[in-house]
């Protein structure tokens, strides 16, 4: 495989920076994950 030239590397770096920022923003846009339902309380049987 041919080595990437400086231009390609720079383009990829800029794309990566953009993608990371968008992923961050998408993360902020998503609502908080729903909390797991509370565990049912088990009554201890006496005796």
């Amino acid at each position, binding site marked *: 495989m041919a080595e990437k030239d400086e231009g390609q590397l720079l383009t990829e770096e*800029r794309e990566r920076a953009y993608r990371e920022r*968008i992923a961050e*923003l998408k993360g902020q846009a998503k609502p908080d994950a729903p909390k797991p339902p509370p565990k049912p309380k088990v009554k201890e049987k006496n005796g």
Partner: protein
Amino acid sequence: MPAALYSPHLEEVQIAQEAAWGDAAAPTIGMAGITSCRMTPNVNTSQIVDKRASTMPAYIASVNNLSGEVDMSGIVTYTQVQYLLNAMFALDAATPFTYIAALAPAAPVTNNILYGQSGLCYAMSGAVMDKLTFHGDTNGPLTFDAHWFGKVPVALARVALTPPAVIAALGGQTKLYIDPIATAHGTTELTLTAFSFDFEMTNSRAPVWHLGTLNPDNYKHGKWGGSLRLVVEMTAATKAYLTAILAATVEPVGYNIRLMAAGGGTTNLTMDFSGHLLEAPIMFTDQDGVTTAELTFSPAYSSQAAMLSCYKFSNVAS
């Protein structure tokens, strides 16, 4: 006598999202809600007026370079606005479609834009968007105007595509929020205030020609630009903004402005703008007997943590 062969009523617009600039991929998207499209070939030719002992106008002519332009207008839909935003910013393939104006240029989606009707279609490949404007008022859907440059249009057969059912974004669904530039967008809603807006974005991209090509063989990026013009009712809150703007003595006041159209279901288009009020506000205008002010903001970088740009968009398609 046979009927006229072609009719403007049969025209349509289809686009492809090119994988590589100028690959002329076949259109895959039938655009809905397009109300106007103008495709302009730029064929730069000249005649050489040489000295040859003759009064004839010219003997030699040359094609110097080629390019094209497309101007398109239509309504904004939650269903397809991401195709415009992909072209203005960079590809996002999954909802919530999210975009920012990047500090270092990110590659936009380039398009192959086909316009015409069966038997009479032309397509402009390598289409790079350099201007996108959204308009909103109280009288119907939000609308857009977009401009692309690209290679000279060539004849291309239409593809059998049906535009999808779309959901229009309406002025009646759009809210306005204005906050200081250091406060997050969408913090302070101004109800009963906005009448209309014009949100214009430019990016100073331009075609590039090298030796060995007639069509542009590349394009270049430039600085982001544009403006946001708001027509707002003169309320106590508007008056407070105006007073602050006029009282600025060191630098103009900066604002984070959000326009958000929330449609049915989960559809939601959020347009965030950061900028300064550079032009003096136009005071004491009126709209149908209501005193208004016209504020025109120029985009600027906002260092607010959720922004870090001058433009940010989010579209939840469904």
